């Protein structure tokens, strides 16, 4: 049902969204990483500094089935509803769309009337998704100008191609496959867009069969995981261009286009290079109507004693940084980078996107380092910075430490004890760990974080 004024959390431009009030709650996907039949859940974390529950899980809704492997999720509606060509600002940002990457089941969760007690209002079963779209393993969720788009890793049999499908943002009916012409694209992972340039981008990980049993060293060493970025015509739903980073660049994951709709560039993270186990950040940019790509940040592997390494890495005698998530502040100024291997969390000033400048670094967890948190300085942490989310004003950074259950077991075989931390960003660069904020997820594992009212990776804008 429509409302009389635009949802107050919709902002015409990223600049205006930076003036949004501070979030008081965070929603976190909580995954059961153990084989005990326990269900995954969506947790509510109190992030209001003035609240007595600050830094604690204050609400939780369990999924109706076991084995979903919750991963990424997103809102039904956001600032893109203000876009002029398909304006419909009188809907509410109210429902979280939460897919399970293993079950291919999609949950629609209502965050009203009580935001601390979210409720499941609709469940889309994997058979429906398969019949309507031909896809399985739904992943990234983005609210767009004309509905919800979601990426999927592959087809119901577990092979490719993976792609994107469309969902109605009010009825939550799965409407069908998004692509009209997919060109050479086969592998899928993340997607986002430049609304001002009618351009959509997709990245590559692997099909469900290539990833759901853990990273496969044979596929990896043969350069078989994703190494391309695909450029699409957004309204025409057609493949335009393929940008190949080269087969040694394995797993092209998170895409973070500039939030300003007049800027035609963005950043992507590559997990590992086969050449030297380094990880990298690449910049895509538009020149005379064609898109190009360039490596702008490289983070080297760190030498390590094989005895301290999991079997998968012992032969390499080094810890790869493993860039598994990145995030960009709404003013397109600071890029945040999670290194799931070394346990480092980095901040770069990307005001000049071609020449990033390192402005901050924090260590928490890590395969070898196991860096502790100031709240419990004597307790080593495992897991490492992973899913990162950033407040709209750019002042608060949140991240959790699990990657994906079958992969966690390969990099942290002792089992992940999951936590969520908060960092404060300084206005001119630099970050500080908030010593009061350390969430313990107990038996479950925290994954993606979404902030109440929107965050730095939830909304897109049509006005500069």
């Amino acid at each position, binding site marked *: *049902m*429509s409302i009389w*004024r635009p949802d107050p959390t919709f902002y015409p431009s990223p600049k205006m969204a930076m003036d949004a009030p501070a979030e008081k709650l965070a929603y976190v996907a909580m995954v059961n990483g153990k084989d005990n039949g326990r269900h995954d859940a969506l947790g509510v974390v109190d992030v209001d500094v003035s609240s007595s529950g600050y830094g604690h899980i204050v609400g939780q809704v369990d999924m109706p089935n076991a084995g979903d492997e919750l991963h990424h999720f997103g809102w039904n509606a956001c600032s893109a509803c203000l876009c002029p060509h398909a304006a*419909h600002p009188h809907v509410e940002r109210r429902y979280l769309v939460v897919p399970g990457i293993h079950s291919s089941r999609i949950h629609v969760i209502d965050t009203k009337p009580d935001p601390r007690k979210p409720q499941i209002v609709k469940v889309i079963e994997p058979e429906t998704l398969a019949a309507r779209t031909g896809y399985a393993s739904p992943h990234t969720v983005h609210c767009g100008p004309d509905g919800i788009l979601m990426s999927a890793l592959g087809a119901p049999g577990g092979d490719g191609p993976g792609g994107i499908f469309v969902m109605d943002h009010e009825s939550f009916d799965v409407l069908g496959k998004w692509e009209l012409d997919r060109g050479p694209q086969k592998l899928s992972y993340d997607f986002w867009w430049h609304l001002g340039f009618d351009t959509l981008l997709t990245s590559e990980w692997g099909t469900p069969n290539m990833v759901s049993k853990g990273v496969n060293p044979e596929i990896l060493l043969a350069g078989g995981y994703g190494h391309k970025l695909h450029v699409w015509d957004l*309204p025409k739903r057609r493949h335009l261009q393929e940008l190949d980073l080269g087969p040694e660049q394995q797993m092209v994951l998170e895409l973070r286009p500039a939030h300003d709709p007049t800027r035609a560039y963005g950043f992507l993270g590559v997990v590992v290079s086969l050449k030297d186990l380094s990880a990298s950040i690449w910049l895509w940019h538009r020149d005379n109507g064609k898109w190009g790509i360039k490596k702008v940040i490289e983070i080297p592997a760190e030498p390590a004693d094989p005895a301290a390494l999991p079997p998968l890495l012992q032969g390499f005698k080094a810890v790869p940084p493993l860039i598994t998530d990145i995030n960009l502040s709404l003013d397109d100024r600071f890029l945040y980078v999670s290194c799931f291997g070394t346990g480092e969390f980095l901040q770069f000033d990307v005001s000049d996107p071609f020449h990033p400048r390192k402005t901050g670094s924090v260590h928490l967890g890590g395969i070898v380092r196991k860096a502790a948190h100031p709240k419990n300085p004597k307790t080593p942490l495992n897991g490492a910075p992973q899913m990162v989310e950033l407040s709209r004003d750019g002042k608060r950074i949140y991240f959790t430490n699990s990657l994906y259950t079958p992969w966690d077991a390969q990099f942290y075989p002792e089992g992940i004890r999951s936590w969520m931390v908060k960092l404060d960003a300084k206005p001119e660069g630099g970050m500080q760990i908030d010593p009061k904020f350390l969430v313990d997820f107990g038996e479950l594992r925290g994954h993606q974080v979404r902030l109440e009212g929107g965050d730095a990776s939830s909304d897109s804008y049509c006005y500069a």
Partner: protein
Amino acid sequence: MTESIGAWSTLFLLGAYHGINPGMGWLFAVARGMQEHRARAVAWSLPPIALGHALAIGVVVLIAQLAQVALPMTYIRIGVAVTLVGLGVYKLVRSRHFRWGGMQVGFRDLTIWSFLMASAHGAGLMVLPVVLASGPHAHHHVAASSSAAGGIWATLIHTLGYFTVTAAAALLIYQKFGLAMLRRSWFNLDLIWAIALVVTGFVALLV
């Protein structure tokens, strides 16, 4: 004479009402200006947007006038009324929003967009009761041959009202006020519009 002034004012004001609605054109012009970093892009967006709107009105008026030749006035009146009420109720129950195209648009795209947007709104339908009420059957002294001219005039006056407000809003918002006001002031005109469609439908039936 006073009756036709009343009808013309109504047509003009209906146009102005469409014009003030951000979703019906001016916001797109502002977005084009922001995307290209120049006020000229705002100005250049206005003519195709107005043309598309005029076409949407004109087509409906033309269809109604052709129908008038073949069918008795009562039938047309009932047909228009039922369509208005039906469209209004549909919009109240299921607020499916309009979707077409993207942000990179030329003259042709903007004209088509505006035509489709106005049509999806039922803009032309709303004008019909006014056009029909002031048409040749209502005023027997007007020759039937002037009916087409009346339709064109109705379309032009409506579009003038639409264009005046759209252009003023687009330029003022782009140059002076900025888009922050959208968040507070963008009332759900579509909801009011849906109610207006229903009310007009009943009035057309009864009057």
